[in-house]
């Protein structure tokens, strides 16, 4: 034997303890609390007229440096990633990423997004049933609904991202994306219960695209473009605590009550006065996936609108954390258990044969 067994055992036990203690555990768990200054959107489908002004402005206002659709060329993107630094490009893009090839006969004419995509962060879709006459009626009616990132309080996408390219702002709670970190593994797409993140499948240096709640505009003292350009007050921007109260108030009101709906922001002076609709089952986002910062109201139930009904009402990252927290113990267990087994079995062997501890 080249080194003494005692020395070896000591070394192994020592390194196991260091390993187990060196892995930070408790503080690393993701928060399930609403951040102090959390902001979000309240989308009330019963006010939405399907004008898509929010979509148009989402696209243009995000195609500027800092915006969620802004992108450098491939080469600077690769270089930034390789050197692990944020992009500092400020040149304007040639054009916002319009989707002009999605339907036949529309070669290069207008932006016709069919779904969320690598080029579309926010989409208004229509629900139709029977004759489609009555607005907001589940049968023989029609309704609009909005799809975009809901800015989860405990976002699955952030928790699964291996290099931490998706980040939840600790103050505003906005879930944003740091492109240079991303490795393009698409785990965020798989993990998001609302299936929001989209990928630039056709790019050789693809990015993940999703709504970042106009974080770049908030930094300039403005707010989300979709809310600013919504003429009806269907989409409003505000503090999450306020929006929750507002949503609960509307939900509790008797259908038909005349109400002053704020337009653009929760505390806006301009309002739109009209009767309150009969809301369906629930306020979407209060508890879904542990709660989201964007909230939604609708007169047609969310299940009929195509929202998954299987999403748990608790924070998803907790499911993985329960597993991850056990990892240091596995190392400790294997090293302690393995060392003692090794000690026992080699002693036994020594008594028998003398072919001791040199294996290869």
């Amino acid at each position, binding site marked *: 034997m*080249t080194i003494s067994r005692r020395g070896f055992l000591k070394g*192994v036990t020592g*390194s196991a303890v260091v390993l187990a203690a060196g892995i930070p555990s408790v503080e690393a768990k993701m928060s399930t609390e609403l951040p102090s200054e959390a902001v979000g959107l309240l989308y009330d489908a019963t006010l939405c007229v399907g004008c898509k002004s929010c979509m148009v402005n989402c696209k243009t206002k995000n195609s500027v440096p800092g915006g969620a659709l802004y992108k450098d060329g491939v080469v600077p993107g690769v270089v930034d*990633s390789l050197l692990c630094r944020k992009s500092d490009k400020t040149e304007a893009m040639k054009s916002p990423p319009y989707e002009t090839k999605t339907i036949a006969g529309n070669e290069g004419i207008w932006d016709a997004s069919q779904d969320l995509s690598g080029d579309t962060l926010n989409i208004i879709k229509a629900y139709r049933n029977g004759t489609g006459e009555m607005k907001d009626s589940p049968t023989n009616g029609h309704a609009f609904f909005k799809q975009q990132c809901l800015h989860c309080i405990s976002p699955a996408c952030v928790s699964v*991202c291996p290099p931490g390219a998706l980040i939840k702002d600790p103050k505003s709670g906005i879930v944003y994306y740091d492109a240079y970190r991303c490795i393009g593994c698409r785990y965020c797409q798989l993990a998001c219960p609302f299936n929001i993140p989209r990928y630039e499948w056709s*790019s050789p240096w693809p990015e993940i695209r999703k709504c970042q709640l106009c974080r770049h505009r908030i930094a300039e003292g403005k707010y989300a473009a979709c809310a600013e350009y919504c003429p009806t007050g269907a989409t409003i921007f505000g503090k999450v605590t306020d929006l929750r109260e507002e949503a609960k108030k509307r939900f509790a009101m008797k259908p038909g009550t005349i109400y002053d709906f704020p337009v653009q922001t929760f505390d806006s002076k301009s309002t739109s006065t009209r009767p309150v609709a009969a809301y369906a089952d629930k306020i979407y986002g209060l508890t879904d996936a542990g709660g989201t910062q964007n909230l939604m109201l609708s007169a047609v139930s969310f299940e009929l609108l195509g929202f998954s009904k299987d999403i748990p009402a608790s924070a998803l990252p907790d499911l993985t954390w329960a597993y991850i927290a056990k*990892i240091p113990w596995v190392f400790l267990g*294997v090293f302690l258990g393995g060392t003692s*087994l090794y000690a026992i079995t080699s002693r036994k062997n020594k008594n028998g044969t003398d072919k001791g501890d040199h294996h290869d």
Partner: protein
Amino acid sequence: MIDFTTYAGPKIGNALNKLLDDRHSRHLGIKMDTPFTRVLVFLILGAAFVAGYRVIFGLGASTNMNDYWPWGLWIAFDVLGGVAMAAGAFMIAGAVYILNLKKYKCIARASILNAFFGYLLAAISITFDVGRSAVIWHPLIMWQINSVMFIVALHLVLYLTTLATESSPMVFEKLGWHRALNAVHRIMVGAVMFGVALSLLHQSSLGANYLILPSKLSPLWYSKHIPYMFLVSALMMGFSMVSFETILTGKVFNHQVPKNVLEGLAKGIVFFGSLYFAMKLGTVISGPGLGVLLHDGFLSFMWLLEMAVGVVIPVMLLAKTSSRKNIETIFVASILVILGVLLNRLNVGVFAVSSYANHVGSDYFPSIMEFVLTAGMIAFAILGFKVCAKYLNLFPDTGH
């Protein structure tokens, strides 16, 4: 034999000469230039082409994955399957070096090398699967410990290093580097323990990747215990893989393996197979209920197929002591387990999200290029193993 000292100078040339000396493995009768090898090389070239195409034109041009089906064949088969196939190594290494079960020593080198190639296959495939291959190392410096994938990435690198360390004596031996050999021997037991810990975690972590999908993964496969089911099925696969390749290399390279080794391995298959069966059944009963096995159409069929092929039939085949003495029975049972566990990984990785993805109007079937890359990677692993069997002393205690 070519004398490399004339081409590469005395130092490197000598080392090359020693490495390429295959006297010790002559009795195995491995021929390099066979039709089979040519097929392998052809497949590898195909994969290399796909890899290049994929890097230049992106994932959309080369695969059929999409926003609703972000992970496809490469993750499900190459990564989940390749890693599961490599489970034999840490078990055999642990048995030989930690538990001092000397009888398994004759197959230790082969199974460690096999695992090395399994992991290499997984590592190369995932490099091309991520959209930004050139920065796949980011997680190693940008830690994000809430992510199971980060943990998998870290383990993959550490474990590849460990496997390389565990295999290195074969190379050092040939080169006659005694100092290096001694150094490796000294840390061997520690390295093996590290490898065991990493493997336990790695195998279960691949299952833990799916913990966050309670609303997307079919209830036939989703369970809070999916990490442990991945681990137990990997152990079952490990025993099968080792006995499969022991019998196979015995047949192809004509060397003999002690029967009691195979018997021990077969017992392992039965034990872990039964445990796995109980876990799988328990999940279905406590989750969606047994009825789902009949009512969920295609998915039920896939579940039943996976269980029949990979668990029920092989365990029944090996249940009797007498059948565990029959090499042919063990061979067949091992192959079934391997196929069954691979099918399980495909089910989890591809099919189990289908009902969710179909609901939102999406579909997925791997593209030709996805198949070509996967086939090439398998060929690469086989060829690599063959080359090593020829030039390294893989079966030290058998034959001569």
